[in-house]
């Protein structure tokens, strides 16, 4: 089955610092999505990124599909960035598409 591994499991930063979160995934993954789960539990889509690099403000993501990993960069972190960051890999599920989630990175940004 699909394997998705995230590191580090926990990360504590001072406000203003930069960070890199990593996601490794197994074969047969045909796409990748990064989410931020806020303190209220909602999963916010950050990037849908099968390959290449995308940027959105202070966040950017890079996926190297041939080497089966993806990186999420957070620059100039803010306290509102706190929460759990999930990487999730797509696989075909009949006519639908299943997401297999990693175990997440718990990010805490201190003021």
């Amino acid at each position, binding site marked *: 089955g699909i394997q998705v591994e995230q590191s580090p499991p926990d990360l504590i930063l001072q406000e203003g610092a930069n960070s890199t979160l990593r996601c490794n995934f197994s074969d047969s993954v045909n*796409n990748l*999505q990064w*989410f931020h789960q806020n303190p*209220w*539990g*909602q*999963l916010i*889509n950050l990037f*849908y990124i*099968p390959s290449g690099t995308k940027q959105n403000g202070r966040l950017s993501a890079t996926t190297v599909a041939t080497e089966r990993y993806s990186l999420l960069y957070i620059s100039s972190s803010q306290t509102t960035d706190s929460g*759990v960051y*999930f990487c*999730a890999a797509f696989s075909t*599920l*009949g*006519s*639908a*598409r*299943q*997401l297999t*989630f990693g*175990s*997440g990175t*718990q990010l805490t940004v201190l003021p």
Partner: protein
Amino acid sequence: SQTIHQWPATLVQPVGSPLSLECTVEGTSNPNLYWYRQAAGRGLQLLFYSVGIGQISSEVPQNLSASRPQDRQFILSSKKLLLSDSGFYLCAWTGWGDYGYTFGSGTRLTVV
């Protein structure tokens, strides 16, 4: 634009009581719909998915069932809740083709 609505936001139910959680999507047709559960901790598990009206596939045998009575409506049900059914339930949709998932705001269910 497309939006997904999920309710209620929180629910406390006694063991043995029935359950009905509803999810609706607006602004799209024939979406793929999904129910996920997040237990204590971080893992999210796919419970059910649907590619059309009346078409339900189950990924994990359990005390729950799902139905899709209308194109953009997905319902998660149980006849008798167990303590182990407690968790955070998330509905999601994807379009046909190369699209990411969009999740609803979730329902936090506590069975007491």
